[in-house]
């Protein structure tokens, strides 16, 4: 297209004069960098509104910001341990009242499962230390692994590792099952549902955080 326009002329497909440039005038440079982060403004901003209402709302806003930090809904991230324990830290702990959600209004899965959790950490710890109960049941575990290997013949070896650990988990839960009474049947259904799920295996394997957490507040139904 541009070729047949001849030499030395800007190859525009439209008449530049229509956009407001006279013939031969230099066009502005092409901008290749992003605009500045804090550009100069041609006009200064107007001052903010002030008045009694505005002042009160400002005070309210700042007070509200402090208040929400003291509400039970404010979940703080577990702090990483500091090298030096600060004396002042002890006095900066804020008192929070506990909050018991109305479980009737929440989906059932929200409810922390008390029974399960009490039993949970025990078996988890066992998993960590690796000995104790699991030794007594080694035969059981081995049998499970064999079963799984047979079942998972076609699967990749990568997954097998996961499966094994998952099966350990399962066997442990089997133990619990024996201990638990029929009253827990309802809760157990859910667990079984979970086991059918893929997520649970991978999740339990590297769920280090989970163990720590559930240890902390294993028998508290309150948030």
């Amino acid at each position, binding site marked *: 297209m541009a070729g047949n326009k001849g030499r030395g002329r800007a190859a525009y497909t439209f008449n530049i004069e229509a956009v407001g440039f006279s013939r031969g005038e230099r066009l502005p440079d092409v901008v290749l960098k992003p605009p500045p982060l804090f550009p100069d403004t*041609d006009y200064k901003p107007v001052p903010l509104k002030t008045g009694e209402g505005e002042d009160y*709302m*400002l005070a309210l806003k700042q007070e509200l910001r402090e208040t929400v930090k003291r509400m039970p*809904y404010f979940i703080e991230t577990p702090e990483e341990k500091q090298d030096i324990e600060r004396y002042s830290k002890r006095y900066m702990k804020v008192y929070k009242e506990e909050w018991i959600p109305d479980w009737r209004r929440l989906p059932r899965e929200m409810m922390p499962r008390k029974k399960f959790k009490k039993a949970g950490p025990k078996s988890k710890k066992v998993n960590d230390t690796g000995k104790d109960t699991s030794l007594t049941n080694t035969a059981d575990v081995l049998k499970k692994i064999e079963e799984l290997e047979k079942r998972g013949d076609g699967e990749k070896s990568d997954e097998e590792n996961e499966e094994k650990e998952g099966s350990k988990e399962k066997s442990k839960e089997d133990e619990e099952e024996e201990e638990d009474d029929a009253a827990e049947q309802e809760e157990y259904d859910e667990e079984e549902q979970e086991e059918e799920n893929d997520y649970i295996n991978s999740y339990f394997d590297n769920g280090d955080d989970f163990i720590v957490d559930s240890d902390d507040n294993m028998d508290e139904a309150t948030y």
Partner: protein
Amino acid sequence: MTQAEIKLCSLLLQEHFGEIVEKIGVHLIRTGSQPLRVIAHDTRTSPDQVKKALCVLIQHNLVTYQVHRRGTVEYEAQCSRVLRMLRYPRYIYTAKTLYSDTGELIVEELLLNGKMTMSALVKRVADRLTETMEGTDGKTMDYAEVSSTFVRLADTHFVQRCPLVSPTENSEPGPPQPAPTLVINENDMYLVPKLSLIGKGKRRRSSEDDATGEPKAKRLKHSTDNKEPIPDDGIYWQANLDRFHQHFRDQAIVSAVANRMDQTSSEIVRTMLRMSEITTPSGAPFTQPLSSNEIFRSLPTGYNISKQVLDQYLTLLADDPLEFVGKSGDSGGGMYVINLHKVLGSLATATLESVVQERFGSRCARIFRLVLQKKHLEQKQVEDFAMIPAKEAKDMLYKMLSENFMLLQEIPKTPDHAPSRTFYLYTVNILSAARMLLHRCYKSVANLIERRQFETKENKRLLEKSQRVEAIIASMQATGAEEAQLQEIEEMITAPERQQIETLKRNVNKLDASEIQVDETIFLLESYIESNTKRQ
């Protein structure tokens, strides 16, 4: 959901509920509805924490849940509701102006807790009010007084019931459902349960409850066993934000009329709005028609204007080119309505005009208004009509075009779209300009919050120090220390440090005030966009 909105949601959630809730909330906003397990997996958070975070979000009405076909529960974030957190101070302040301190505390507690039962709310507000009544010993706040304010708030629809848990669930055979179904009963939305709340607010002076040494859970059981079941158990209340918005809108209309005409006409419009407050749904384009006789009867008693004057005012208002007030009939001495849709459009246009004026100067604003008025204009026409030299006018037009305040419409004379045979018409599309401006407002608020957090973080050490010194001084004053000692402690903060704190305070105040005021613009633009999308 634009990036700017997500960013703002994230900052708001973080300030209100901490980082974990923020992580879960933002994840839900980004991805839409998801089941618990997927959330935990994708955010790499332990299910326990996800549960906690979801509980908090559901409690505050920021997340809703829905049972899926296969029995899984999916959670969905209400993004626009999250953005409302920015407006909390304004809601509370409004409650204060309407229903004094008691109303203020009721709304504040509701916003802080998401939802509460009436009995718990009344108790808490009475306690708080009693605590503030220091000095006058023995004076306490009566529960009855707080509940009467609450009833008034419910009558004017500023608070409403949360959806109830449907009772059919329990009687159903088979395994219980994974989640309760919540139903809204339209008729009792504002129905206050009959409660006999007798008692007075208590000061928290002694925590004898805590001193008993009983474990918490036990104590809880204790209290629920002993007392009769809570009378309004399960009936939760929340602040009705739409009603607050309606109030803000009405205020904006009244002040707009006052600015355009005079105080009397604004008072007439206020009366009309008040009369149709509850009868008109919040999204309606018009108020209910009101006859001039009705308006005359409802005017505030202190206002001494005769029927003739009122009729003159109403005709004047109806003749106004902005069409805030329209005449819908002649019966009953003339029926009048307020055209809410038109009002919001005018307010949004005025906002846009003033933004253009403050950003690009008055000459740009002249061009902007010109194009608004004439709808479509060619570049040459703009130069001529605005009486601005061609070069400058071009510059201004292009600037506004590049900032998206204006649009360029091509109308080709021939099908080949050749530039020389095409009309280029400049137009202003108010709706799209308002959307653009709204987006910018979200961005500015997010920037303001980030800046504020940065400023406070930079001076964290200094702030902590000053707080500590203040605490020491306060405790020394209580024990009756000498003036010299206090002076000594006060000097622990050096003059430059004091100056730095002053500067910081001033900056933070400015940033906070800006946040509140940008939100006012956000409110206007949102209402306009909402009223426009509803009509289509």
